[in-house]
């Protein structure tokens, strides 16, 4: 590692921030808050500048920094960013300062700030790691701060929720660790050294087909719990509901993405063949999740739980797009990860603000807030429509790309998934109607509207929601090269070909048709040439015969 590496710095700054916070006396809350915010903002600025400095034409990993770490195992400190991880890093960088400013822990600011900063380091480390071992370390490290945040600053059933969250994820990671070690050791056949470098491992592709399938399943186990995919999702509603607002924001906005990101980054690139073969299973689980999450969300009485279940549905979409294995579906999935982070993060913030005022999350208790809190109602509406996927807002772009991407290759899954969009409109609008419409009575009537600080917190999120909905091109430009490269990799190693329409849309089809025509033309020409040659040959033979007969 030579000189200054911005990625390493981005991981280290929150850690240093947390250490500094830990050294400040408990009573100096203002200093603690300032230090925590400074560290988070610094990382946020760095992540945004990273997005600008990122070379949109390159599909390779950029800003790579490498240093040898544990030579015995071939582990190195290897960080890098490409189009797939770039915006997740930016999302992390933006959401953390917002979560820190926008919420009030009410007690023990010191511990809270320190854990949040450590959590940020864990998230960034996971997104940036190009070394499987380092990824796993950070992936597991994120559990700990989240566990303490939910358990320490959450609501009534926080201990149960935090334990459930921790153990579920650890259960998944147990499979991944064994799978990871198996992958690395089986890849190091003959003279090839042990390495955890995912670029190298993806190139080697040394696993036998059925072994690769088992290892893929082991990895998927970890990510499926994290996403969460349908049968492993039960920790999520509890964790979300019991977590403090900032915990929910980060959990939904960033941590769940670790699962989908892991599926894209490791599932697809390390086990292309297995991913292609097992895609139907994952797609089915994703679609079941979409419908199940939506149905459950509709039936919730608790506003936060409703948003939590909507996350299950939304992440089902992302998995659908990922395992459609088309360029559009995949880039839609990556974009939707960012979108979901923004809109669900914003929803949790708003619900948190309502809770701060009313001290309840029960939908039945809330009524007519539109009158008492008009600004809140407006913001809620925008965020809600983003979550539903209204054209013009960010959610639409991602969902649309996912649906057309998956429709090409996985028609029926896409069709069922589309029903989820309609259900999303149902549960969110119905909830909005119950909470905001009507005439407020009692406590609901006297609520104060959003403060200036709260509006300022929401502003960047709303800006991004609208911006990505109207003009997603700069983001997609940076995502696409990497996604294309990944799909090509899957095609090469997985013995699979995506339909042309999924690459370039109508133009692709036209190109393909032209190509086909040219090919057909060539084939016809060859055929006629062949026939001509045959004819000539027959003629020659006949002539020969005639000559010999004549003699």
């Amino acid at each position: 590692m030579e000189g200054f590496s911005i990625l390493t710095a981005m991981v280290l700054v929150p850690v240093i921030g947390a250490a500094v916070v830990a050294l400040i006396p408990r009573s100096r809350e203002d200093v603690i808050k300032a230090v925590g915010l400074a560290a988070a903002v610094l990382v946020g600025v760095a992540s945004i500048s990273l997005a600008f400095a990122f070379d949109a034409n390159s599909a390779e990993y950029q800003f790579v920094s490498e240093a040898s770490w544990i030579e015995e195992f071939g582990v190195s400190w290897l960080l890098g960013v490409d189009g797939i991880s770039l915006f997740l890093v930016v999302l992390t960088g933006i959401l953390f300062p917002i979560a820190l400013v926008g919420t009030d822990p009410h007690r023990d600011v010191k511990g809270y700030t320190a854990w949040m900063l450590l959590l940020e380091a864990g998230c960034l480390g996971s997104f940036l790691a190009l070394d499987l071992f380092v990824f796993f370390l950070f992936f597991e490290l994120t559990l700990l701060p989240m566990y303490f945040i939910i358990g320490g600053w959450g609501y009534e059933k926080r201990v149960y929720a935090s334990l459930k969250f921790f153990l579920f994820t650890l259960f998944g990671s147990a499979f991944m660790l064994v799978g990871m070690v198996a992958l690395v050791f089986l890849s190091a056949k003959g003279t090839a050294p042990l390495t955890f470098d995912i670029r190298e491992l993806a190139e080697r592709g040394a696993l036998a087909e059925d072994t690769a399938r088992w290892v893929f399943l082991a990895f998927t186990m970890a990510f499926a719990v994290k996403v969460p995919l349908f049968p492993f999702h039960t920790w999520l509603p509890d964790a979300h509901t019991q977590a403090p607002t900032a915990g929910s924001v980060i959990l939904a906005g960033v941590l769940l993405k670790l699962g989908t990101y892991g599926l894209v980054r490791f599932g697809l690139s390390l086990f292309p063949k297995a991913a292609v073969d097992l895609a139907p299973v994952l797609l089915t689980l994703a679609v079941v999740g979409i419908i199940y999450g939506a149905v459950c969300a509709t039936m919730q009485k608790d506003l936060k739980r409703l948003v939590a279940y909507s996350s299950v549905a939304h992440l089902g979409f992302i998995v659908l797009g990922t395992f459609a294995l088309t360029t559009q579906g995949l880039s839609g999935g990556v974009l939707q990860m960012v979108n979901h982070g923004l809109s669900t993060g914003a929803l949790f913030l708003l619900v948190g603000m309502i809770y701060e005022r009313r001290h309840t999350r029960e939908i039945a208790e809330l009524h007519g807030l539109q009158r008492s809190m008009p600004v809140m109602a407006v913001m809620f509406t925008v965020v809600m429509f983003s979550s539903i996927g209204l054209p013009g807002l960010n959610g639409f772009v991602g969902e649309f790309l996912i649906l057309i991407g998956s429709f090409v290759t996985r028609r029926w899954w896409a069709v069922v998934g589309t029903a989820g969009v309609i259900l999303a409109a149902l549960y969110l609008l119905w909830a909005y109607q119950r909470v905001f419409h009507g005439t407020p009575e009692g406590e609901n009537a006297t609520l104060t509207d959003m403060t200036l600080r709260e509006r300022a917190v929401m502003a960047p999120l709303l800006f991004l929601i609208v911006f990505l909905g109207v003009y997603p091109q700069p983001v997609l430009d940076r995502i696409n090269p990497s996604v294309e490269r990944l799909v090509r990799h899957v095609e090469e190693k997985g013995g699979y070909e995506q339909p042309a329409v999924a690459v370039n849309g109508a133009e692709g089809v036209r190109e393909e048709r032209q190509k086909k025509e040219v090919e057909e033309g060539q084939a016809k020409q060859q055929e006629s040439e062949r026939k001509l040659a045959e004819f000539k040959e027959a003629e020659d033979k006949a002539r020969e015969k005639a000559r010999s007969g004549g003699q």
Partner: protein
Amino acid sequence: MNGLPMNGLPMNGLLVAQAGQPEGLAPLELPNVEYSAMAPHLILIGGALVLLVWVAMVRRRPPWAWAAFTVAVGLASLGASWLMWLDVGRNGPRTAVADAVVVDGYSIFFMVLVSVIVVLGALMGESFLKREDIRGPEFYVLMLLSSSGAMFMASANDLVITFLGLEILSIALYVLAGLDNRRMESREAAIKYFVLGAFSSAVFLYGVALVYGATGSTNLGEIVGYLQSSVAPANGVLLAGVALLLVGFGFKVAAVPFHTWTPDVYQGAPSPVTGFMAAGAKAAGFAGLLRVFFATFDTLKLDWQPIVWVLAVATLLVGSVLAIVQEDIKRVLAYSSISHAGFVLIGLQAANEKGLAGSLYYLLTYAFMVLGSFTVVTLVGRKGDARHDLDAYRGLSARRPALALAFTVLLLAQAGIPFTTGFLAKFYVISAAVEGRSYSLALIGMLSSVVAAFFYLRITVLMYMSTDEEEAEEARTEPLAIPRSMAVVLAVSVAFTVAFGLLPAPVIDFARDATLLI
């Protein structure tokens, strides 16, 4: 067999001059006792004897001076071990004292480990003895003797020496377990440990006898020679002997189903003694077990691997599952130590070099984690060493944030959270198992660590997430003092766990180099 000293051939000993000897007696061939090959062992024993004389001769008896002396002895043996390490690095491993003792990376690794445990154990004991008003230097003396036994187990090249080491280790530990003889539990622990320990020693000895019967020697090198030279070495007697050795060692390391003494003894013994037991006695048991099985019975691998597989699975699962239902912190840690033994057994089952290195790394890092944990247990146990119910930890973070944080780090390291040595230790043995194609065992190990994570987290929940006002009030009225020596132990163990979790290379290299078996 041909190495036995009675056959009249000069091997590596001194041939004594025969002048003036009575008729009819063959000249004796005497072994060359190289004291330098056992320097750390002898330093510990010598330290114990000096301490005894000191106490007998000097009227003034400042207990802190005994602790300081023990620490100095521990450091001296650490220094001696280090010199030997450098020597082995230069000149290669060798055997000494008529092939009975071996000086190689492996034995020195354990000398270093045991020396460190002595130092930390003495520091832990000092304030405990003062608090409990247990006078006399017995704690230090017995700990030094017991540690020398542990070293002998590691450096034994003869099953008889292994047995001697086992007994030196154990007998001192039986007494240590009953040190706090005003407490009924302590006495009970001593008796229980003694009866079962003596039983296991007998089983071990019977195993040694059978192995001798089958191979004609108790010397490990000669057993290897026999196994390599014979066409079909595995016969019933030999396998029965190996199995009995495994049982004997299994008792010492608390492998299921030979673990039944563990919870009661860990609970009853004075807390620092329990810490010493969990760190030192377990390491010593494994020191003997790993050498005998890796180096000596390597050719019988296919016979013992399945048995160890079953042992490892049972140990992992029973340890972690039963820990969940315990209400006493010492019992929780006892069952957790059982499950850690299961992890070391994973390394043994892999039966490859990585497995050995992984097991060594595991033992080294676990020693620090468990010593630190029992330091906290000792502190929270308060005067009388009795407050060990889990409720005693309720709200600890509010009273003693640093103590709670240290305990959390140590517990989470035991649970295998990244960036601690605990994670790397698990990773090391798991990777050994995967390399040895024991995928199912690796998976069972990791899943059991998820179960284990539950009870470690349960303790952190108590420390951090209980905001009961009444408890807090009680906490204010009942102060929890942290003596300086205890703070040192805690700081050292936490620093080791975290620092070498972040920069693991030195310790990993140390463990790998220690696999230079003779």
